[in-house]
């Protein structure tokens, strides 16, 4: 099970902030699941500058996801 969080423009595009995805093995599988359920998000999640955090640590490439994992999609950031 992965709890998926969307931030910034991604959240507005999806229309949701948080969703639970069941039966997820790795990040690539999760991305496929999201793309199947929400085709509009497919491109955006791969967009330039979108970073991914698994359990609040940034990851690159595919990683396996343990149960009870939090996966956040982070579009380009802007503070201050």
């Amino acid at each position, binding site marked *: 099970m992965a709890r998926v*969080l969307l*931030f*910034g*423009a991604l959240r*507005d595009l999806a229309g949701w902030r948080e969703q639970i995805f069941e039966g997820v093995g790795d990040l690539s599988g999760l991305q496929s699941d999201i793309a199947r359920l929400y085709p509009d998000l497919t491109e955006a999640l791969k967009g330039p*500058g979108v*970073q991914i*955090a698994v359990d*609040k*640590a*940034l990851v690159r490439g595919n990683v396996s996801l343990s149960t009870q994992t939090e996966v*956040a999609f*982070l*579009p*380009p*950031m*802007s*503070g*201050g």
Partner: protein
Amino acid sequence: MSVTVQTDMFDAGAQLSAFCHDLPDAGGVVSFTGIARMDDGKTERLELEAYPGFTEPWIEALVAEARTRFSLSAAKVIHRVGSILPGEAIVFVATAARHRRQAFEGADFLMDHLKSRAPFWKKEHGPDGARWIEPRQADYQDLTRWSADHTLKEGS
């Protein structure tokens, strides 16, 4: 070293007073206060969001790097989230060091990274609707000034 992400408004001067209160042998203190601009009425309100549990440690790691790199004796960051009106302070950074150049560069480094790397998302509400703000090209260019900074470039 202190990092705070908060919805409450703050007074930059009061923060600077508190920061200066107990500085062991610092010769220079630099502060930066970022203020929401009205932009001739184009901005009515900013909406800032953080990722709780991710944003604070990210800033703490940034401050730790700045302390080492610029020999800071103290550093402080306050960043607001939530709804912010023009004229209100969004971010406050203070640095203290033995010599003024270290304090200046430390504050400058912190702001450049907060502006275009820190995990915040900013939406601008105006008369023509709302839009998400991404860093300007100038903000990304500012980052290249600290090019020895490999760790942070990798985004951790």
